[in-house]
């Protein structure tokens, strides 16, 4: 059985089929498509029949007031939650039922609203974990044969990302000693190391100051322009969203209430109602 056929046979998501933004897409059409996705907790519909498309290389903003269902939708896309109904397709692969790690191997990178970092590791070690996971060639037998040392190409790739995100100065600092804002950047860098086709960023500017937010916007644009990474951005800082996104989708009470160019969308009465609670 060839490597490629083995990958297909095991769902196309084994270590052999890791995708990245630098590799050609395997299918045409939208990169990510969520069709009729619903998720309820108890009797409350957090996400209600949502249809969402992210095109290749697009920077899409997903905004809405607290409790709109944005993070729940993210969790359904990334596999942390299983949707009650609907289908999520990524790059031609139906994701339903796939665990998070397989979705990540397909090329979906993610940052989290409540940060998820590894406090014991330094920033550099943090990224090395992601880099080794991206390459997918870590094996127990290699560990036991002392063949798991960091390789030059791994170190080079990590250094590039440290430079890109601006974490070079703190690369040897344990993550537990970093402030919240830097931890968000570490999360972002970790996702970027995996060379994602789609970066799902959940409130990445939360905890950052104005300058850092501006730098973050620049990083997101660089990812899009230089690496062709599509970005699905949830953010409460509407100023930042307006600056970076190509298109915006507004959610409220689990439903999409508007979508289109950011400035136009924000003028929609439904959006004003969602944010301000007043008509018009």
């Amino acid at each position: 059985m060839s490597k490629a056929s083995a990958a297909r046979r095991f769902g196309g998501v084994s270590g052999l089929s890791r995708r990245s933004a630098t590799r050609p897409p395997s299918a045409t059409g939208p990169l990510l498509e969520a069709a009729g996705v619903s998720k309820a907790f108890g009797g409350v519909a957090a996400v209600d029949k949502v249809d969402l498309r992210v095109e290749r290389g697009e920077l899409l903003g997903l905004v809405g007031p607290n409790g709109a269902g944005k993070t729940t939708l993210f969790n359904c896309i990334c596999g942390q939650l299983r949707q009650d109904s609907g289908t999520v397709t990524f790059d031609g692969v139906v994701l339903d039922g796939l665990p998070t790690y397989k979705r990540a191997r397909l090329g979906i990178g993610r940052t989290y609203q409540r940060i998820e970092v590894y406090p014991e590791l330094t920033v550099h070690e943090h990224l090395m974990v992601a880099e080794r996971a991206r390459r997918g060639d870590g094996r127990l037998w290699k560990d036991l044969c002392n063949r798991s040392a960091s390789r030059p190409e791994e170190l080079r790739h990590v250094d590039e990302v440290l430079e890109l995100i601006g974490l070079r100065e703190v690369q040897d600092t344990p993550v537990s000693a970093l402030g919240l804002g830097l931890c968000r950047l570490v999360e972002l860098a970790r996702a970027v190391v995996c060379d994602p086709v789609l970066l799902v960023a959940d409130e990445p500017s939360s905890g950052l100051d104005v300058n850092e937010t501006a730098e973050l916007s620049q990083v997101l644009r660089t990812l899009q322009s230089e690496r062709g990474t599509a970005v699905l951005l949830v953010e409460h800082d509407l100023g930042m969203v307006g600056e970076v996104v190509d298109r915006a989708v507004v959610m409220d009470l689990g439903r999409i209430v508007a979508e289109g160019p950011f400035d136009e969308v924000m003028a929609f009465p439904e959006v004003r109602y969602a944010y301000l609670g007043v008509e018009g």
Partner: protein
Amino acid sequence: MEQFLGFAIPGVPYGCTYALFAIGLVLTYQATGVFNFAFGAQAFTSAYVFVYMVQDWHFPVWASFLLSVVVLAPALGLIFNRFIFRRIPNTNTTAKIVMGIALLVGIPTLLPVILGNQNLYNAPTLIFSQSTVYLTLAGYPVNGQDLTVVLVTAVVLVAVVALIRYTSLGLQMRAAVESRRLVQLNGVNADRVVSVAWAASSFLAGLSGVLLAPYFPQANQSQAYITLMVGAIAVAASASLRSLPLAALFGILLGVASLVLQGYLPTQSIFYSSILPSLPFIVLVFALLFNPGLKKLDDNKDPLASVDPPAPPRAATIRTPRVQRFTQIAWYSLLAVFIVSMLTWMPRNWENVFNSGLAFATVFLSITLITGMGGQLSLAQGTLAGVGAFTAAQLANHLGLNMVFGMLIGAGVAAVVAILLAVLSLRLKGLGLALMTLAAALFFDSSIFPLQSVSGGQGGINLQESWVAPLNLFAPSGHPFFVLAMVVLSLSVIAVLLVRKGTTGRFLSAMRGSEVGVGGVGINVTWQRILVFALSGAVAGVGGTLLVINQQNANPAQFNYQLSLAFVVIVVTAGVSTVEGAIQGALGFVVIEQLLTYAPARLQGLSFVLFAAGALAYAAHPEGLVEYFKRRTILALYPAARSDARPRAGGPAARAGDATPVVTTTGAPMNPTAAAGADRE
């Protein structure tokens, strides 16, 4: 029907014993947020002191009850709260479990040290006379003890439900469990509320202990209480650690089911001899697997958890390069002296002691792997060692396979059992995982290890010299075994170090921080967990085989669950995150045990007490108390090593003043542990 009732009715008072303990466990969990592994030990303490006072000091029963239950039991609870559990952040589930286990191991061994190791038969009953039959139901004579137990269980249930549900104190207790700090913001003295909760639950433990003492042959045998407690854990888990009435009901049902099955099952069947004794543990496994209420046991509910200081770092990360170098040089020097001594002048009895220490060190390395590296608290490592040992012994016994080769097969079988355990525990972590592994250890203790075909029965399997030929491992000098043990331990240490340094170690380090984050970069968390379980099972299997070769006998008592618990306590004290910790713990344990053979008989259990006391510092020093003092000693001897400390937030290095200032680039140092709402010790 009459026959059924004849079996079922005695099951009611029997079930009430489970119910009483289960109510106590649920009350402690609901009112303090701690799953109190020490509950059985607290019950044992009151029972021991109660019977001791009545029999040795000839105190009246009422006065003994007053002192042992009304005074001593709540006082113990208050001490536990004040000096141990109050210092543990809400989020640190592992520390709570480790402390509970340390108390469970330490208290029963401390009592004989204080009061002497005499037999305490015929514990007096409290209300009604045990020798009087008050009524007969379906042919079963209900005596005063049965009546007392049923009556007290009913009263306790009503009183505890009323306290928790219908009083403002109960409301404050439930709120304080969620967040002490938030309750304090509402003007409630949370520390006092939690203290009252500890006093109440400890009173209940004491009452249960004294009440149930007449059922047990001797009040100075803690095992009966601990076994009863594990049965009660199954009952409490079935009630999701939440519902007191359900806990009581399930307790009674478990008692009735046990006695009905005991009555109907043929006494020669395997179900009678092997499955029935494990019924509570099987119930516990099913509860953990299928009760959705237990899925989120470790979820942090404290909205103010983010103000907790960062968790103290582990040994490997707080050693400065110079301390690390100093430690390495000291270790290599000691190793050289040790090897030369063992092969030249060491007296034979001490050589055997150290040989035994090397075997224990290999078993303890498995705890370094699973707990120190994998972040998973397994209470079944002794059991896995036993699986390896019995496999090798039986292969030698039946097939004539040399035990050194059998050791490898034993390691494989232990790894397979560990994998099964990992698969059963996939959705569990923290407390759930600890309970699952404890249930597995007890299942093996009660159902698998006693089988003639597995362990050769109570007496075990006496090893033959030919089984280890031509290595002559039973030579009186001990040298051949020493060489084998050193080779096996060295290979195990090298393997563990390579795994820690390699990809697997990196992934495990990351997993200890955030399993969600690890999954998000494409790492298969499930596979990593299975891998670390398998590795630790294999190492435990190797160590277990070494242990039985050293003792020339393999019997179930060498691998019971109590030793599994004690192993965890020893390794945690010595340092769970380093391989030296395992070796220090093992050698320290056997040396102290040997020294105690020269001391009076009542001090025999002191080694467990010492290690348990050390483990109580786990929350403050997760790197291990021995490791902490070792580092301080090195810094005192070699002050220059302070200068190149790595930066750390709020950890021991920073507190000891031996680190450079904490690096904070944006705002205050964060606490990823609390922010993510997960348990990371």
